[in-house]
Protein backbone atom coordinates (compact mmCIF):
# COMPACT_ATOMS: atom_id res chain seq x y z
CA UNK A 1 0.00 0.00 0.00
CA UNK A 2 2.67 2.52 1.07
CA UNK A 3 4.90 1.35 -1.74
CA UNK A 4 2.26 1.79 -4.44
CA UNK A 5 1.39 5.21 -3.04
CA UNK A 6 5.00 6.31 -3.22
CA UNK A 7 5.30 4.74 -6.67
CA UNK A 8 2.49 6.95 -7.98
CA UNK A 9 3.85 10.08 -6.30
CA UNK A 10 7.45 9.58 -7.44
CA UNK A 11 6.39 8.72 -10.99
CA UNK A 12 4.23 11.85 -11.03
CA UNK A 13 7.12 13.94 -9.73
CA UNK A 14 9.52 12.51 -12.31
CA UNK A 15 7.18 13.16 -15.23
CA UNK A 16 6.42 16.70 -14.04
CA UNK A 17 10.07 17.59 -13.47
CA UNK A 18 11.08 16.14 -16.82
CA UNK A 19 8.26 17.96 -18.63
CA UNK A 20 8.97 21.45 -17.21
CA UNK A 21 10.97 22.81 -20.20
CA UNK A 22 7.96 22.02 -22.42
CA UNK A 23 5.39 23.64 -20.15
CA UNK A 24 7.01 27.06 -20.34
CA UNK A 25 6.78 30.02 -22.68
CA UNK A 26 9.39 29.60 -25.41
CA UNK A 27 10.80 33.06 -24.69
CA UNK A 28 12.17 31.94 -21.30
CA UNK A 29 14.62 29.04 -21.50
CA UNK A 30 16.22 27.75 -18.27
CA UNK A 31 15.45 31.06 -16.59
CA UNK A 32 16.98 33.18 -19.36
CA UNK A 33 15.05 35.63 -21.55
CA UNK A 34 15.39 34.59 -25.19
CA UNK A 35 14.42 37.27 -27.73
CA UNK A 36 11.79 36.43 -30.33
CA UNK A 37 13.43 34.82 -33.37
CA UNK A 38 16.04 32.84 -31.43
CA UNK A 39 13.67 30.59 -29.50
CA UNK A 40 14.10 27.69 -31.94
CA UNK A 41 17.89 27.75 -31.69
CA UNK A 42 19.24 24.21 -32.16
CA UNK A 43 21.44 24.30 -29.06
CA UNK A 44 18.51 25.39 -26.89
CA UNK A 45 16.33 22.60 -28.29
CA UNK A 46 19.15 20.18 -27.42
CA UNK A 47 19.45 21.57 -23.86
CA UNK A 48 15.75 21.02 -23.25
CA UNK A 49 15.84 17.49 -24.65
CA UNK A 50 18.91 16.55 -22.62
CA UNK A 51 17.40 17.93 -19.44
CA UNK A 52 14.11 16.06 -19.87
CA UNK A 53 15.68 12.78 -20.95
CA UNK A 54 18.17 12.84 -18.07
CA UNK A 55 15.59 13.59 -15.38
CA UNK A 56 13.18 11.01 -16.80
CA UNK A 57 15.79 8.24 -16.97
CA UNK A 58 17.22 8.96 -13.51
CA UNK A 59 13.72 9.04 -12.05
CA UNK A 60 12.74 5.73 -13.66
CA UNK A 61 15.98 3.97 -12.70
CA UNK A 62 15.67 5.26 -9.11
CA UNK A 63 12.07 4.05 -9.03
CA UNK A 64 12.99 0.56 -10.29
CA UNK A 65 15.79 0.18 -7.76
CA UNK A 66 13.42 1.40 -5.04
CA UNK A 67 10.70 -1.10 -5.94
CA UNK A 68 12.96 -4.15 -6.28
CA UNK A 69 14.97 -3.32 -3.23
CA UNK A 70 11.95 -2.82 -0.93
CA UNK A 71 10.20 -5.93 -2.31
CA UNK A 72 13.38 -8.04 -2.13
CA UNK A 73 14.29 -7.09 1.42
CA UNK A 74 10.80 -7.02 2.99
CA UNK A 75 11.53 -3.67 4.58
CA UNK A 76 9.30 -2.35 7.39
CA UNK A 77 6.86 0.42 6.53
CA UNK A 78 8.83 3.30 8.13
CA UNK A 79 11.88 2.37 6.07
CA UNK A 80 9.84 2.35 2.84
CA UNK A 81 8.48 5.80 3.67
CA UNK A 82 11.93 7.11 4.57
CA UNK A 83 13.62 5.85 1.41
CA UNK A 84 10.69 7.07 -0.69
CA UNK A 85 11.12 10.58 0.71
CA UNK A 86 14.90 10.48 0.15
CA UNK A 87 14.27 9.45 -3.46
CA UNK A 88 11.89 12.39 -3.99
CA UNK A 89 14.40 14.85 -2.56
CA UNK A 90 17.10 13.26 -4.70
CA UNK A 91 15.10 13.77 -7.90
CA UNK A 92 14.37 17.38 -6.94
CA UNK A 93 18.03 18.05 -6.12
CA UNK A 94 19.25 16.54 -9.38
CA UNK A 95 16.66 18.60 -11.31
CA UNK A 96 17.92 21.74 -9.59
CA UNK A 97 21.54 20.94 -10.33
CA UNK A 98 20.81 20.16 -13.94
CA UNK A 99 18.70 23.31 -14.23
CA UNK A 100 21.58 25.42 -12.94
CA UNK A 101 24.00 23.79 -15.37
CA UNK A 102 21.76 24.56 -18.35
CA UNK A 103 20.92 28.01 -16.97
CA UNK A 104 24.61 28.92 -17.14
CA UNK A 105 25.04 27.34 -20.58
CA UNK A 106 21.98 29.19 -21.95
CA UNK A 107 23.22 32.52 -20.55
CA UNK A 108 26.60 31.95 -22.14
CA UNK A 109 25.08 31.11 -25.52
CA UNK A 110 22.86 34.19 -25.45
CA UNK A 111 25.79 36.43 -24.52
CA UNK A 112 28.21 34.98 -27.06
CA UNK A 113 25.75 35.24 -29.93
CA UNK A 114 24.56 38.72 -28.88
CA UNK A 115 20.94 37.68 -29.28
CA UNK A 116 18.51 40.54 -29.47
CA UNK A 117 21.12 43.30 -29.50
CA UNK A 118 19.52 44.74 -32.65
CA UNK A 119 15.97 44.60 -31.25
CA UNK A 120 14.11 47.31 -29.39
CA UNK A 121 13.45 46.13 -25.83
CA UNK A 122 10.03 47.18 -24.62
CA UNK A 123 7.43 46.47 -21.99
CA UNK A 124 3.81 46.21 -22.98
CA UNK A 125 0.63 46.53 -20.95
CA UNK A 126 -3.01 46.38 -21.94
CA UNK A 127 -5.21 49.05 -20.38
CA UNK A 128 -8.26 46.78 -20.48
CA UNK A 129 -6.66 43.65 -19.02
CA UNK A 130 -8.01 44.32 -15.52
CA UNK A 131 -11.61 44.56 -16.61
CA UNK A 132 -11.21 41.25 -18.47
CA UNK A 133 -9.50 39.43 -15.62
CA UNK A 134 -11.58 36.37 -14.68
CA UNK A 135 -9.80 35.33 -11.51
CA UNK A 136 -12.21 34.18 -8.81
CA UNK A 137 -13.30 36.93 -6.42
CA UNK A 138 -11.42 36.70 -3.13
CA UNK A 139 -14.76 36.56 -1.33
CA UNK A 140 -15.17 32.98 -2.62
CA UNK A 141 -12.00 32.02 -0.76
CA UNK A 142 -13.61 33.36 2.40
CA UNK A 143 -16.56 30.93 2.03
CA UNK A 144 -14.83 27.84 3.55
CA UNK A 145 -13.65 29.81 6.62
CA UNK A 146 -17.06 29.88 8.42
CA UNK A 147 -17.18 26.07 8.03
CA UNK A 148 -13.98 25.84 10.06
CA UNK A 149 -15.37 28.23 12.67
CA UNK A 150 -18.57 26.14 12.97
CA UNK A 151 -16.46 23.01 13.42
CA UNK A 152 -14.51 24.71 16.23
CA UNK A 153 -17.76 25.62 17.99
CA UNK A 154 -19.09 22.08 17.47
CA UNK A 155 -15.84 20.62 18.88
CA UNK A 156 -16.18 22.88 21.96
CA UNK A 157 -19.74 21.61 22.52
CA UNK A 158 -18.63 17.96 22.17
CA UNK A 159 -15.47 18.45 24.25
CA UNK A 160 -16.70 16.39 27.25
CA UNK A 161 -17.57 13.36 25.10
CA UNK A 162 -14.25 13.27 23.20
CA UNK A 163 -11.64 10.55 23.86
CA UNK A 164 -8.67 11.22 26.14
CA UNK A 165 -6.15 10.83 23.35
CA UNK A 166 -6.47 13.06 20.28
CA UNK A 167 -4.98 11.81 16.98
CA UNK A 168 -2.38 14.07 15.41
CA UNK A 169 -1.23 11.92 12.52
CA UNK A 170 -2.82 9.35 10.24
CA UNK A 171 -1.12 6.44 8.48
CA UNK A 172 -1.47 5.56 4.80
CA UNK A 173 -4.49 3.34 5.63
CA UNK A 174 -6.31 6.38 7.05
CA UNK A 175 -6.05 5.13 10.65
CA UNK A 176 -4.58 7.45 13.31
CA UNK A 177 -1.09 6.38 14.36
CA UNK A 178 0.07 9.22 16.61
CA UNK A 179 -1.79 10.81 19.50
CA UNK A 180 -1.55 13.63 22.00
CA UNK A 181 -3.25 14.28 25.34
CA UNK A 182 -6.69 15.87 25.13
CA UNK A 183 -6.73 19.59 25.92
CA UNK A 184 -8.80 22.56 24.71
CA UNK A 185 -5.88 23.38 22.40
CA UNK A 186 -5.11 19.93 21.05
CA UNK A 187 -8.73 19.18 20.08
CA UNK A 188 -8.89 22.17 17.72
CA UNK A 189 -5.23 22.26 16.60
CA UNK A 190 -6.07 20.70 13.23
CA UNK A 191 -8.89 23.18 12.65
CA UNK A 192 -6.56 26.06 13.50
CA UNK A 193 -4.09 24.80 10.89
CA UNK A 194 -6.96 24.52 8.39
CA UNK A 195 -8.09 28.08 9.14
CA UNK A 196 -4.54 29.42 8.64
CA UNK A 197 -4.25 27.65 5.28
CA UNK A 198 -7.65 28.98 4.20
CA UNK A 199 -6.62 32.53 5.09
CA UNK A 200 -3.28 32.04 3.35
CA UNK A 201 -4.99 30.91 0.13
CA UNK A 202 -7.36 33.85 0.34
CA UNK A 203 -4.36 36.17 0.66
CA UNK A 204 -2.57 34.49 -2.25
CA UNK A 205 -5.62 34.95 -4.47
CA UNK A 206 -6.08 38.55 -3.35
CA UNK A 207 -2.47 39.51 -4.04
CA UNK A 208 -2.06 37.57 -7.28
CA UNK A 209 -5.10 39.46 -8.54
CA UNK A 210 -3.24 42.70 -7.87
CA UNK A 211 -0.04 41.44 -9.46
CA UNK A 212 0.94 42.39 -12.97
CA UNK A 213 -0.48 40.99 -16.22
CA UNK A 214 2.83 40.66 -18.06
CA UNK A 215 2.52 40.54 -21.86
CA UNK A 216 4.85 39.39 -24.61
CA UNK A 217 5.90 42.46 -26.61
CA UNK A 218 5.96 40.77 -30.02
CA UNK A 219 2.82 38.63 -29.59
CA UNK A 220 0.47 40.89 -27.69
CA UNK A 221 -2.97 39.50 -28.39
CA UNK A 222 -1.87 35.88 -27.97
CA UNK A 223 -0.06 36.50 -24.72
CA UNK A 224 -2.96 38.58 -23.41
CA UNK A 225 -5.41 35.71 -23.86
CA UNK A 226 -2.92 33.19 -22.46
CA UNK A 227 -2.12 35.37 -19.45
CA UNK A 228 -5.77 35.85 -18.59
CA UNK A 229 -6.48 32.10 -18.92
CA UNK A 230 -3.48 31.34 -16.74
CA UNK A 231 -4.71 33.72 -14.05
CA UNK A 232 -8.23 32.30 -14.20
CA UNK A 233 -7.27 28.63 -14.03
CA UNK A 234 -4.61 29.20 -11.37
CA UNK A 235 -7.22 30.73 -9.10
CA UNK A 236 -9.62 27.85 -9.87
CA UNK A 237 -6.92 25.36 -8.90
CA UNK A 238 -6.23 27.25 -5.69
CA UNK A 239 -9.95 27.23 -4.89
CA UNK A 240 -10.12 23.49 -5.50
CA UNK A 241 -7.22 23.01 -3.07
CA UNK A 242 -8.96 25.17 -0.47
CA UNK A 243 -12.26 23.28 -0.78
CA UNK A 244 -10.67 19.82 -0.82
CA UNK A 245 -8.59 20.60 2.23
CA UNK A 246 -11.65 21.83 4.08
CA UNK A 247 -13.49 18.60 3.26
CA UNK A 248 -10.55 16.39 4.26
CA UNK A 249 -9.67 18.19 7.51
CA UNK A 250 -13.33 18.61 8.43
CA UNK A 251 -13.89 14.89 7.90
CA UNK A 252 -10.93 13.94 10.12
CA UNK A 253 -12.10 16.32 12.83
CA UNK A 254 -15.57 14.73 12.78
CA UNK A 255 -14.10 11.23 12.99
CA UNK A 256 -12.07 12.36 16.00
CA UNK A 257 -15.24 13.57 17.72
CA UNK A 258 -17.40 10.59 16.69
CA UNK A 259 -15.02 7.65 16.53
CA UNK A 260 -17.27 5.27 14.60
CA UNK A 261 -18.43 7.84 12.06
CA UNK A 262 -16.30 7.02 9.05
CA UNK A 263 -15.64 3.31 9.09
CA UNK A 264 -12.28 1.99 7.92
CA UNK A 265 -13.08 2.18 4.19
CA UNK A 266 -14.07 5.83 4.22
CA UNK A 267 -11.08 6.64 6.45
CA UNK A 268 -8.83 5.17 3.79
CA UNK A 269 -10.66 6.54 0.75
CA UNK A 270 -10.84 10.20 1.89
CA UNK A 271 -7.09 11.01 1.98
CA UNK A 272 -6.48 8.88 -1.12
CA UNK A 273 -9.25 10.70 -2.95
CA UNK A 274 -7.73 14.01 -1.87
CA UNK A 275 -4.31 12.94 -3.16
CA UNK A 276 -5.66 11.81 -6.52
CA UNK A 277 -7.79 14.91 -7.02
CA UNK A 278 -4.71 17.04 -6.35
CA UNK A 279 -2.45 15.03 -8.68
CA UNK A 280 -4.97 14.96 -11.53
CA UNK A 281 -5.86 18.65 -11.17
CA UNK A 282 -2.19 19.64 -11.12
CA UNK A 283 -1.42 17.52 -14.18
CA UNK A 284 -4.38 18.88 -16.16
CA UNK A 285 -3.43 22.42 -15.14
CA UNK A 286 0.25 21.98 -16.04
CA UNK A 287 -0.34 20.31 -19.41
CA UNK A 288 -3.51 22.09 -20.54
CA UNK A 289 -2.78 25.61 -19.27
CA UNK A 290 1.01 25.60 -18.91
CA UNK A 291 3.14 28.36 -17.49
CA UNK A 292 1.61 31.74 -18.28
CA UNK A 293 -1.03 29.93 -20.36
CA UNK A 294 1.62 28.86 -22.88
CA UNK A 295 -0.23 25.64 -23.66
CA UNK A 296 -3.62 27.27 -24.16
CA UNK A 297 -4.53 26.70 -27.81
CA UNK A 298 -5.78 29.72 -29.71
CA UNK A 299 -7.98 29.84 -32.80
CA UNK A 300 -5.76 32.36 -34.56
CA UNK A 301 -2.07 32.47 -35.31
CA UNK A 302 -0.52 35.82 -34.50
CA UNK A 303 2.40 37.08 -36.60
CA UNK A 304 5.13 38.32 -34.26
CA UNK A 305 5.76 42.08 -34.46
CA UNK A 306 9.16 42.66 -36.10
CA UNK A 307 11.95 44.57 -34.40
CA UNK A 308 10.75 44.45 -30.80
CA UNK A 309 11.31 42.01 -27.98
CA UNK A 310 10.54 41.88 -24.27
CA UNK A 311 12.56 44.05 -21.96
CA UNK A 312 15.30 41.82 -20.59
CA UNK A 313 14.77 41.64 -16.82
CA UNK A 314 17.21 38.77 -16.26
CA UNK A 315 19.13 41.06 -13.89
CA UNK A 316 16.20 40.88 -11.44
CA UNK A 317 16.13 37.07 -11.55
CA UNK A 318 18.80 35.67 -9.28
CA UNK A 319 19.95 32.34 -10.74
CA UNK A 320 16.89 32.67 -12.98
CA UNK A 321 14.69 31.52 -10.10
CA UNK A 322 14.39 34.25 -7.43
CA UNK A 323 12.78 37.51 -8.50
CA UNK A 324 14.01 40.53 -6.55
CA UNK A 325 12.63 43.84 -7.85
CA UNK A 326 11.84 46.57 -5.35
CA UNK A 327 10.30 48.77 -8.07
CA UNK A 328 7.70 46.24 -9.22
CA UNK A 329 4.61 46.50 -6.99
CA UNK A 330 3.63 42.92 -7.96
CA UNK A 331 3.85 40.63 -4.96
CA UNK A 332 3.58 37.47 -7.02
CA UNK A 333 5.11 36.91 -10.47
CA UNK A 334 5.07 33.94 -12.81
CA UNK A 335 7.79 31.41 -12.15
CA UNK A 336 10.47 31.16 -14.80
CA UNK A 337 11.11 27.46 -14.37
CA UNK A 338 7.96 25.69 -13.29
CA UNK A 339 4.23 26.30 -13.48
CA UNK A 340 2.56 28.77 -11.13
CA UNK A 341 3.48 31.87 -9.17
CA UNK A 342 6.57 32.78 -7.21
CA UNK A 343 7.28 35.63 -4.81
CA UNK A 344 8.79 38.99 -5.61
CA UNK A 345 11.46 38.88 -2.92
CA UNK A 346 11.88 42.63 -3.28
CA UNK A 347 8.53 43.08 -1.53
CA UNK A 348 8.27 42.33 2.22
CA UNK A 349 4.50 41.68 2.09
CA UNK A 350 5.24 38.51 0.14
CA UNK A 351 7.37 37.05 2.92
CA UNK A 352 4.58 37.75 5.38
CA UNK A 353 1.94 35.95 3.32
CA UNK A 354 3.95 32.76 2.86
CA UNK A 355 6.41 32.53 5.72
CA UNK A 356 4.13 33.94 8.45
CA UNK A 357 1.44 31.22 8.18
CA UNK A 358 4.05 28.46 7.82
CA UNK A 359 5.74 29.59 11.05
CA UNK A 360 2.39 29.57 12.89
CA UNK A 361 1.62 26.06 11.58
CA UNK A 362 5.06 24.84 12.65
CA UNK A 363 4.46 26.46 16.06
CA UNK A 364 1.15 24.56 16.44
CA UNK A 365 2.80 21.28 15.44
CA UNK A 366 5.59 21.96 17.94
CA UNK A 367 3.17 22.68 20.79
CA UNK A 368 1.36 19.38 20.15
CA UNK A 369 4.46 17.25 20.78
Amino acid at each position, binding site marked *: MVLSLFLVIILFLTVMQAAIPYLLKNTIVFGVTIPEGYTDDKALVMFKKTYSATIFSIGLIGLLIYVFWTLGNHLPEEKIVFIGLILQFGILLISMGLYLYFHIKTMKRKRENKWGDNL*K*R*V*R*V*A*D*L*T*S*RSNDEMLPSLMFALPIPITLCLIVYTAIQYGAMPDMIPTHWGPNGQPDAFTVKSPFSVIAMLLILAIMQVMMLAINYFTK*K*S*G*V*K*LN*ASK*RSTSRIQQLSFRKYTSWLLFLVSISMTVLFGFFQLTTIHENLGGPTLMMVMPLGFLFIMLIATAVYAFKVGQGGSRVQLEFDEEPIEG*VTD*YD*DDAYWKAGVFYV*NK*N*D*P*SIFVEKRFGVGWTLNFGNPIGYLIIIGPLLVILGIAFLLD
Partner: protein
Amino acid sequence: MFIQIEPTSEIPIYTQLANQLIELIASGAIKASEALPSVRSLAADLGVNMHTVNKAYHELEKKNIIEIIPKSGAIINSISANGPTDMQMDLIKLHLKPLIAESIVYGMDKEQILSITSSIISEITEG
Protein backbone atom coordinates in the same frame (compact mmCIF):
# COMPACT_ATOMS: atom_id res chain seq x y z
CA MET B 1 -5.39 49.13 -26.11
CA PHE B 2 -1.72 48.46 -25.66
CA ILE B 3 0.81 50.71 -24.01
CA GLN B 4 4.45 50.21 -24.91
CA ILE B 5 7.39 51.67 -23.01
CA GLU B 6 11.09 51.44 -23.65
CA PRO B 7 12.92 51.41 -20.30
CA THR B 8 16.35 52.02 -21.87
CA SER B 9 15.24 55.03 -23.94
CA GLU B 10 16.52 58.55 -23.15
CA ILE B 11 12.93 59.73 -22.79
CA PRO B 12 11.84 59.21 -19.16
CA ILE B 13 9.32 56.40 -18.69
CA TYR B 14 6.66 58.71 -17.23
CA THR B 15 6.86 60.93 -20.33
CA GLN B 16 6.59 57.91 -22.63
CA LEU B 17 3.58 56.76 -20.65
CA ALA B 18 1.89 60.18 -20.66
CA ASN B 19 2.52 60.56 -24.42
CA GLN B 20 0.99 57.18 -25.20
CA LEU B 21 -2.06 57.82 -23.06
CA ILE B 22 -2.58 61.17 -24.82
CA GLU B 23 -2.31 59.41 -28.17
CA LEU B 24 -4.91 56.82 -27.16
CA ILE B 25 -7.25 59.62 -26.08
CA ALA B 26 -6.61 61.60 -29.30
CA SER B 27 -7.37 58.55 -31.41
CA GLY B 28 -10.62 57.96 -29.56
CA ALA B 29 -9.52 54.56 -28.22
CA ILE B 30 -10.12 55.88 -24.71
CA LYS B 31 -13.20 58.04 -24.44
CA ALA B 32 -14.28 60.83 -22.12
CA SER B 33 -15.45 59.80 -18.63
CA GLU B 34 -13.75 56.41 -18.95
CA ALA B 35 -11.30 55.49 -16.18
CA LEU B 36 -7.63 54.66 -16.56
CA PRO B 37 -6.35 51.59 -14.69
CA SER B 38 -5.29 52.20 -11.10
CA VAL B 39 -1.73 53.38 -10.56
CA ARG B 40 -0.90 50.15 -8.77
CA SER B 41 -2.18 47.80 -11.45
CA LEU B 42 -0.62 49.66 -14.39
CA ALA B 43 2.71 49.81 -12.53
CA ALA B 44 2.46 46.08 -11.81
CA ASP B 45 1.62 45.27 -15.45
CA LEU B 46 4.60 47.29 -16.69
CA GLY B 47 6.84 46.18 -13.82
CA VAL B 48 7.76 49.79 -13.00
CA ASN B 49 7.66 51.84 -9.83
CA MET B 50 4.25 53.18 -8.80
CA HIS B 51 5.76 56.70 -8.59
CA THR B 52 6.48 56.54 -12.32
CA VAL B 53 2.83 55.89 -13.21
CA ASN B 54 1.70 58.40 -10.60
CA LYS B 55 3.93 61.05 -12.15
CA ALA B 56 2.51 60.35 -15.62
CA TYR B 57 -1.06 60.64 -14.30
CA HIS B 58 -0.27 63.90 -12.54
CA GLU B 59 1.30 65.23 -15.72
CA LEU B 60 -2.00 64.53 -17.51
CA GLU B 61 -3.98 66.08 -14.69
CA LYS B 62 -1.85 69.23 -14.86
CA LYS B 63 -2.66 69.44 -18.56
CA ASN B 64 -6.36 69.06 -17.73
CA ILE B 65 -6.61 65.88 -19.79
CA ILE B 66 -7.69 63.68 -16.91
CA GLU B 67 -9.13 64.31 -13.50
CA ILE B 68 -7.93 62.33 -10.50
CA ILE B 69 -10.89 61.67 -8.23
CA PRO B 70 -10.08 60.04 -4.89
CA LYS B 71 -11.37 56.42 -4.77
CA SER B 72 -12.76 56.40 -8.35
CA GLY B 73 -9.36 56.88 -9.99
CA ALA B 74 -8.20 58.76 -13.06
CA ILE B 75 -11.11 59.82 -15.29
CA ILE B 76 -10.70 61.15 -18.85
CA ASN B 77 -12.01 64.67 -19.40
CA SER B 78 -14.07 65.36 -22.52
CA ILE B 79 -12.30 67.10 -25.39
CA SER B 80 -13.11 70.80 -25.11
CA ALA B 81 -15.80 72.05 -27.52
CA ASN B 82 -14.43 75.61 -27.44
CA GLY B 83 -10.97 74.59 -28.61
CA PRO B 84 -7.79 75.09 -26.61
CA THR B 85 -7.39 77.80 -24.01
CA ASP B 86 -4.85 80.57 -24.63
CA MET B 87 -2.51 78.92 -22.20
CA GLN B 88 -2.71 75.56 -23.97
CA MET B 89 -2.19 77.31 -27.29
CA ASP B 90 0.96 79.02 -26.00
CA LEU B 91 2.29 75.73 -24.65
CA ILE B 92 1.77 73.93 -27.96
CA LYS B 93 3.54 76.74 -29.84
CA LEU B 94 6.38 76.59 -27.37
CA HIS B 95 6.85 72.86 -27.97
CA LEU B 96 6.37 73.02 -31.74
CA LYS B 97 8.72 75.92 -32.44
CA PRO B 98 12.07 74.16 -31.77
CA LEU B 99 10.88 71.09 -33.69
CA ILE B 100 9.92 73.18 -36.72
CA ALA B 101 13.18 75.09 -36.50
CA GLU B 102 15.06 71.78 -36.41
CA SER B 103 13.17 70.58 -39.47
CA ILE B 104 14.17 73.73 -41.37
CA VAL B 105 17.81 73.22 -40.31
CA TYR B 106 17.60 69.69 -41.74
CA GLY B 107 16.59 71.27 -45.03
CA MET B 108 12.84 70.64 -45.05
CA ASP B 109 10.62 73.18 -46.75
CA LYS B 110 7.14 74.33 -45.72
CA GLU B 111 5.46 71.76 -47.97
CA GLN B 112 7.34 68.87 -46.43
CA ILE B 113 6.70 69.99 -42.86
CA LEU B 114 2.97 70.40 -43.56
CA SER B 115 2.69 67.03 -45.27
CA ILE B 116 4.43 65.27 -42.36
CA THR B 117 2.07 67.02 -39.96
CA SER B 118 -1.01 65.97 -41.86
CA SER B 119 0.18 62.39 -42.21
CA ILE B 120 0.81 62.23 -38.44
CA ILE B 121 -2.70 63.54 -37.84
CA SER B 122 -4.25 60.83 -39.99
CA GLU B 123 -2.00 58.23 -38.34
CA ILE B 124 -3.37 59.20 -34.93
CA THR B 125 -7.03 59.63 -35.83
CA GLU B 126 -7.26 56.63 -38.12
CA GLY B 127 -5.46 54.47 -35.58
